[in-house]
């Protein structure tokens, strides 16, 4: 079982991203569940969503406390939310940022990092910082846990409130193409 926690802000499509990813994983013949965190959702407020994937049926319909991967689709939400809480050892971070790896303050548990300037891409494609589908592309590129083709098929079946299918398809591919993947050696760390 592979467990993912999404972090973002209301209005960026965090919950929809988890749902689309679940649909793509199921499309590939695997099992997945996705559960949003529950609050009084409003634009700008921190939002989380949880996703599990496995080759076998998943029974637990619970939140995720020890993720193998964190997908953070907002560049600054980590200032107000502990996005690294409970990370599994050798975890993966997929982060939207315009900074280089060296400028990020990462905990020792993070050993794989996918960095994508999704805000810049989103501003070009949507004119607004909607980063969800871009970061799904970044996740596929970073981890290989899902194929780009399956994500594209999942987008075809999705409804978007704020943009069209064609824009989201482009966003997904840009996220995939413009993600830098780093493997962090921790032995030398202080």
């Amino acid at each position, binding site marked *: 079982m592979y467990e993912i926690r999404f972090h973002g802000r209301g209005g960026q499509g965090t*919950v929809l991203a988890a749902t689309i990813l679940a649909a793509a994983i199921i499309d590939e013949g695997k099992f997945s569940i996705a559960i949003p965190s529950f609050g009084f959702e409003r634009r700008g407020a921190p939002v989380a969503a949880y996703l599990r994937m496995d080759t076998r049926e998943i029974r*637990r319909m619970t939140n995720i406390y020890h993720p193998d991967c964190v997908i953070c689709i907002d560049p600054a939400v980590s200032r107000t939310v502990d996005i690294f809480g409970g990370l599994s050892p050798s975890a993966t971070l997929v982060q939207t940022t315009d900074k280089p790896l060296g400028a990020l303050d990462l905990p020792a548990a993070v050993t794989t990092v996918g960095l994508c300037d999704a805000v810049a891409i989103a501003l070009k494609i949507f004119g607004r910082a909607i980063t969800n589908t871009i970061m799904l592309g970044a996740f596929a590129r970073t981890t290989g846990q899902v194929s780009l083709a399956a994500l594209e098929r999942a987008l075809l079946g999705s409804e978007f409130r704020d943009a069209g299918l064609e824009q989201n398809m482009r966003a997904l591919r840009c996220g995939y193409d413009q993600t830098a993947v780093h493997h962090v050696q921790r032995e030398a760390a202080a």
Partner: protein
Amino acid sequence: MAAVAPVPSGRLLACDGNEAAALAVALARVDMVAVYPITPQSSLVEYLAKFIADGRLQAELVDAEGEHSVLSVLQGAALAGARTFTATSGPGLAFMFEPYLRTPGLRLPIVMSIVTRDTLTPQCVWGGHQDAMSVREAGWVQMYCETVQEVLDTTIIAYRVAEQRDVMLPVNVCHDGNYLSYGTARIELPEQDAVDRFLGAPDVNWHAALDPDRPMAVDPLTGGPGGAGPATFVRYRRGQCAGMHRALDAIRDAHREWGRLTGRNHAPLIECYRMEDADFAIVTLGSMTGAAKDAVDEARAAHRRVGLVKVKTFRPFPATDVADALRKLRAFGVVDRSVDFAWNCGPLYREVVTALQGGTRSPTSRSFIGGLAGADLTVEHFQDVIETVGQMRDVAGPRDTVWLDAQE
């Protein structure tokens, strides 16, 4: 709205519990839907409105001014012969209470999802079984779902049970607010012709009708102390209780037939999981069961002889099945997602203990309450429950209700 990805086979979908319920309503070819949106039910009725707008469901939709009207509209529709559906949660169910009480007495086979929500107050919009439990003595059949797939299948099964002529009662299909309403999972969509064969044409108002060709007084004043009053009233009440009791067999038969048609065999009344050689057990209800089964598997791997009993049908209560499953154990614990204010325990716990009365011996037992107001019930919670119940086998001591999320 959530994504739906048709997979090449065409029958596998990713959807949440609210969409699964709406898909079931469309497959059941419901004639009339009346709705008033309320969290966490809202997206369910939005899906229905969309299916009707898209022509996927040929039904009348009444967007009523409140839940009292919602159910009153459906009573009229059912008396005119329509297959009907609505869904509600928490405060909406409370506002519906007067027609809610009338529906089973009229013997109308209305199906209503309760997308469960904890009740006020303190102010809360999150899941919990308190709303459905608050109406447990009103005479509706109540089934609780574990998975998104079970939400879809049970909503279809509900019509077969409700419209069975020796039952003729309304059915609540309960699915957990938050974890099932918004939880997305992989489901198989049944074929339309399989559902058509399973349900047949609506058979709703043969006994009570608003029909100019069959004029009759529906729900006339009945009872009182004199004349035929008491005996007439007793005849109605007794018939209602008998119909409720027959629903146990109807639910069993309907699940068996559904399994034959689809290959999906959900336990109709209770599910016994790893109970064959268990000497203690936990009892669950609803979506918490998945995490509880995972915890049971872990405990089994550590050579603990623990099993699980999931109650699916809560009304009517499958007392014989529950007693047979638990009587020979040394201890059990019941985990409730709601409270019984009268007895300071969980309502399912009270039912289970009652079911065991009259036997030659009763295992030691304890009530656990958790998952209130949207709180998560995790594998770790069930590890704690298993540990506590396991110790109860051997150690005498207090059996006070355990509040799983309390910070002492």
